[in-house]
């Protein structure tokens, strides 16, 4: 990939991936309030806010991170499967996105119950929290970011074969 497009995609990738972490941090604040607060008004607002953040910010940023990450990997010398740190980053991002997408149904259902006027305060207090997912997700995202910054050494057998083939045989594909 040429320098201009590469820097553009890289910038995009940095914006959406770091934005993803920030959005999860904001979600986490609301998530904590569903556990610490016993004010029904705050609980209803927190669940509504969590649903809004997940649907309109976190999911789009996650998908954009995955797409731009794949594009930037394929467009540079790092490749997608040539280095362990890229493979692990990809794997963690795919898993985090999959869990996130499946989690949206739970969050929407929680928000729906919380917004229902017939829901009593006792029912609000008894709603499940998604704290395990939000804390776990944030830790995974921080791990991915750290991995991408340090880029620890280690070439996969596939990367080694590609490199050897490129040097010796110059095979296509």
């Amino acid at each position: 990939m040429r320098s201009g497009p590469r820097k553009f995609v890289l910038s995009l990738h940095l914006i959406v991936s770091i934005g993803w972490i920030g959005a999860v941090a904001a979600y986490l604040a609301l998530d904590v309030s569903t556990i610490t607060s016993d004010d029904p008004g705050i609980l209803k607002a927190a669940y509504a806010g969590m649903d809004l953040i997940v649907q309109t910010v976190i999911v789009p940023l996650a998908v954009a991170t995955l797409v731009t990450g794949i594009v930037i990997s394929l467009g540079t010398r790092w490749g997608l499967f040539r280095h362990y740190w890229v493979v692990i980053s990809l794997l963690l991002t795919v898993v985090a996105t999959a869990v996130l997408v499946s989690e949206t149904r739970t969050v929407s259902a929680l928000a729906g119950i919380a917004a229902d006027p017939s829901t009593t305060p006792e029912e609000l207090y008894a709603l499940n929290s998604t704290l395990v997912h939000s804390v776990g997700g944030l830790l995974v995202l921080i791990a991915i970011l750290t991995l991408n910054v340090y880029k620890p050494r280690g070439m996969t057998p596939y990367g080694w074969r590609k490199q050897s083939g490129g040097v010796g045989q110059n095979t296509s594909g």
Partner: protein
Amino acid sequence: MTHPATSRGGDGGRGETPPDMPGWVKVAALVVLVMAVVLVVIMFVVGGDHGPRLHTGAAEPIGAFTSMVG
């Protein structure tokens, strides 16, 4: 016979065999495995209704209130 570069797991392996898996990958895999086992054990010990079924719609409770209140 073993090429020095191939046994280190580094990026610069140019020997006849692929480089070994780096130590940090093995350590990370071990940590993830231990964490997964600990999580499963905790879920079994503590109980609770968390799991993949919770997201599929097959599991009943979105909130524990269905069993506590309803």
